[in-house]
């Protein structure tokens, strides 16, 4: 099958300047214009922008905590409007089916669930397998589990840590590793209520810094393409910018990804002792090429915060709206907290909104800043179209600012920043850079040989509308969306690394689980066939 998209303006910074050119798809892959060939299918995309399918590197779309949030909040479905039709179960609000449908309609074709508890990996993959159309991937959480902490406490060899990290990645079918408030979940079980980078985990005598540095080094030694994905300490509190700055300063030449930096962009200035430190953090990021970040933009309205940072979530119970929460002290890296929250246009909400935008606009290199709302923590991913508009239009920011708390905005630089993202920068931030960061060479661009994940947007003055309803979306060459609606239903894959397990480590794991949990290792592992879909996984060669 040969498909031709003709007449569109192709925005593909990896392969050259924006220009009108045809895009050709053959059997699921992008190809150069074939000489003398006639397309089986031609789409006239005049007046449209053609980009690679978008990639979301940090969106909580499936797994135990997400599902517990659904259980806690059956009334929350309205946050996930608009509801599409024509595909099985896609009308089921906040379901796996709707997640895939809504992402595809915005031109997203790959999404990473960034917080998979290794012991509950099967649950996560069962959910991801029921997300249609798009490809998925996961990051396995490490850094709060007894085994890692014991290795560090006992000064075991780097090779042993590497074998363990590789076993976790392989057995949980992950694409990378994330650490969440390193050591804090373990410390919280010992009634520690606050935890910073140099604080020590009781029982183990290792600092949060040591955990992060050890895992960062291990991931790098193993050749995992995605740098260690770090959810730092002290999320959301006034003064957290100091923690983020210290974490950024601690990279020491080794790559590190800092997640949802907006939630660390807070200082202690002003009458309310809650101010923006975004400019300082942006400067720190700009000056340190080891660091990539995603934002975790706040948008206004009802949402639910879902995090494995159980210490932080426990401290937020008082702010729950509505007043019901779940706090789970999980096994090792599992657990977390579900705290529903409504972002209001008050002082605090306005400041958080502005901090995110400041970071987006003041970090100069679009290859190192990633487009996220930390779905659903800052906002549901369905708010992306409005966020694109805020980034691409200073007028849109000005207009929104008039509705917000002037005192809060006065403590930020937002009004003075007039930068507007170009389409090329959007394409880098949401396509090319995520592919590079995750080690996915087959996507994020429209060059020959890439998989045919293509999003076509109808150009218009209304930027949000343009990005909300893609004119056409192709996934692996299948036309899946037309005029903002899913027209074809297919199943994507979950991308994983598949490092071979070290035999000695497998034996050690067997003995550890039998001794500590009284259960054989097969209680915690699973075969691919458990997913019961044809070829649910695809391997990424690192």
């Amino acid at each position, binding site marked *: 099958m040969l498909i031709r998209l003709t007449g569109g303006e192709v925005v593909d910074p990896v392969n050259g300047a924006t220009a009108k050119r045809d895009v050709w798809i053959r059997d699921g892959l992008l190809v150069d214009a074939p000489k003398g060939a006639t397309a089986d299918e031609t789409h006239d995309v005049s007046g449209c922008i053609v980009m690679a399918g978008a990639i979301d590197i940090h969106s909580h779309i*499936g797994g*135990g905590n*997400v*599902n*517990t949030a*659904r*259980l*806690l*909040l*059956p009334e929350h*479905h309205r946050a996930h409007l608009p*509801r599409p*039709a024509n595909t*099985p*179960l896609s*009308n*089921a*609000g*906040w*379901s*796996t*089916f709707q997640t895939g449908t809504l992402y595809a309609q915005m031109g997203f074709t790959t999404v990473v669930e960034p917080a998979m508890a290794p*012991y*509950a990996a*099967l*649950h996560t993959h*069962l*959910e991801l397998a*029921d997300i*249609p159309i798009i490809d998925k991937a996961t990051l396995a959480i490490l850094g709060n589990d*007894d085994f890692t902490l014991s290795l560090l406490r006992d000064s075991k060899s780097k090779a042993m840590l590497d074998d363990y990290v590789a076993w976790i990645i392989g057995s949980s079918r992950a694409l990378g590793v994330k650490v969440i408030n390193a050591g804090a979940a373990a410390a*919280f*079980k*010992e*009634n520690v209520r606050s935890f910073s980078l140099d604080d020590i985990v009781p*029982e183990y005598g290792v600092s949060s810094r040591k955990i992060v540095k050890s895992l960062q080094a291990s991931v790098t030694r193993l050749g995992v393409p995605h740098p260690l994905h770090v959810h730092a300490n002290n999320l959301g509190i006034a003064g957290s910018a100091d923690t983020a700055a210290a974490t950024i300063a601690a990279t020491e030449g080794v790559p590190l990804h800092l997640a949802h930096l907006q939630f660390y962009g807070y200082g202690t200035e002003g009458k309310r002792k809650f101010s923006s430190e975004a400019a300082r953090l942006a400067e720190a990021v700009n000056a340190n090429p080891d660091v990539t970040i995603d934002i975790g933009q706040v948008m206004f309205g009802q949402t639910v915060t879902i995090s494995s940072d159980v210490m932080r979530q*426990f401290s937020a119970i008082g702010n729950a709206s509505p007043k*019901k*929460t*779940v*706090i*789970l*002290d*999980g*096994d090792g890296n599992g*657990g977390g907290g579900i705290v529903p929250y409504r972002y209001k246009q008050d002082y605090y909400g306005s400041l958080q909104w502005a901090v995110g935008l400041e970071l987006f606009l003041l970090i100069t290199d679009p290859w190192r800043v990633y487009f996220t709302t930390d779905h659903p923590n800052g906002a549901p991913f369905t708010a992306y179209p409005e966020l694109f508009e805020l980034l691409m239009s200073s007028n849109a920011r000005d207009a929104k600012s008039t509705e917000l708390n002037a005192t809060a905005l006065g403590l930020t630089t937002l009004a003075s920043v007039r930068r507007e993202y170009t389409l090329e920068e959007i394409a880098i931030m949401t396509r090319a850079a995520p592919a590079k960061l995750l080690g996915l060479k087959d996507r994020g661009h429209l060059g020959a040989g890439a998989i045919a994940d293509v999003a076509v947007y109808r150009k218009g003055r209304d930027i949000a509308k343009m990005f909300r309803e893609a004119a056409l979306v192709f996934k692996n060459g299948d036309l899946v969306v037309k005029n903002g609606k899913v027209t074809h*239903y297919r199943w994507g894959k979950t991308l994983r690394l598949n490092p071979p397990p070290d035999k000695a480590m497998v034996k050690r794991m067997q003995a550890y689980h039998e001794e*500590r*949990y*009284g*259960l054989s290792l*097969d*209680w*915690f*592992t*699973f*075969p691919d*066939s*458990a997913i*019961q879909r044809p070829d649910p996984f695809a391997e990424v060669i690192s």
Partner: protein
Amino acid sequence: MSVAWIGSQPVPLTDAVRNAAKLLASSRCPVFTLDADVHGTRSAIALAERLGGAYDHAAGDVLAKEVALFTDHGGMFTTPGEARRRSSLIVIVGEIPAAHHELLQAWADSQPDLGDRHKRSLFHIGGIETTEAGRLARKLKAIPLRGEGLSLPAALGVLRAALQGQRIAASLSNIERFKKALATAQFPVFVFSGTSGDTAGLVMLQGLIADLNKTGRASSVFLPADDDAWGTALTSLWMTGFPPRTGFSNSLPSYDPGRWDIQRMIRDKEADLHVWMSTRGGETPPLGGKIPLISLSKTNAPTSGAKVTISVGKAGIDHDGVSYSSRTGTFRAVQAAQPSQLPSVSSIIGQLAEALPGKKALPC
């Protein structure tokens, strides 16, 4: 040996599927009683969506109570693994189903290796003592916390008030002993199930745990009354956004534990076809309805009163599958212990969907 029947007559499986599909196609409001592993549940929910039906689990009443704790309140929880490793004080709340007694015994027979590492002690707080609860408490050497004439919610209320230092009219046996154990335990854990008491009692328990967390740490382990039912609830949540007692109108799911209580719907003649599953075998459909019945059950004989019976296997016994396990608090891949020719629920439902007009495959 027959695996399919129309009425009481054995028939080839294809005939039974065709006949069942006819019943489904002509139904205006089919209801599904689920009892299957994750994949059987996924298929059944997808079929219910296509047909505009409603579904619940066979253990729907107790499941609804467990679900209500979360939808109405929430709470603080931990896993069986953490309880085993970290808790030197375990409080069993009310009645815990027999399926979990082996787990409780394993805790009683082991010691924590993390946290305070004190010798583990067990208490049992209950209302009016039942034979079963009393036997379990004695077997585990759990110290009773009981007040004369107090129901479980009342006993929990008294305990909560006592721990807050409030004056209380009633008293609980061994309360001072409990306070002493609590004072040295770094991570006390309360173990409960949907069988422990009504939702109000479970909410009271969570209030007590919240109090303890103001200055120290405490948590609870939730052991579902029925692991398969809880697995169905979790599966339903990711597929539709809702727990069971969900129905579909114009392909939109809605959750309403009253409206979609399918036993009530059958009794009140709101439903016109009942698809009843029982993979654990040896069960009969609940009485009280006179609507046509399709039985997907582990049986070697036709289900009494069923228009169509198809014998199905159970995941983990007859075929591989995925089930919820309260031993780990998450899903587990289970291998067939005694592989048989009995088809899985998901394969039968797939065949039913393809036998419906339109012959469209299900998404699960």
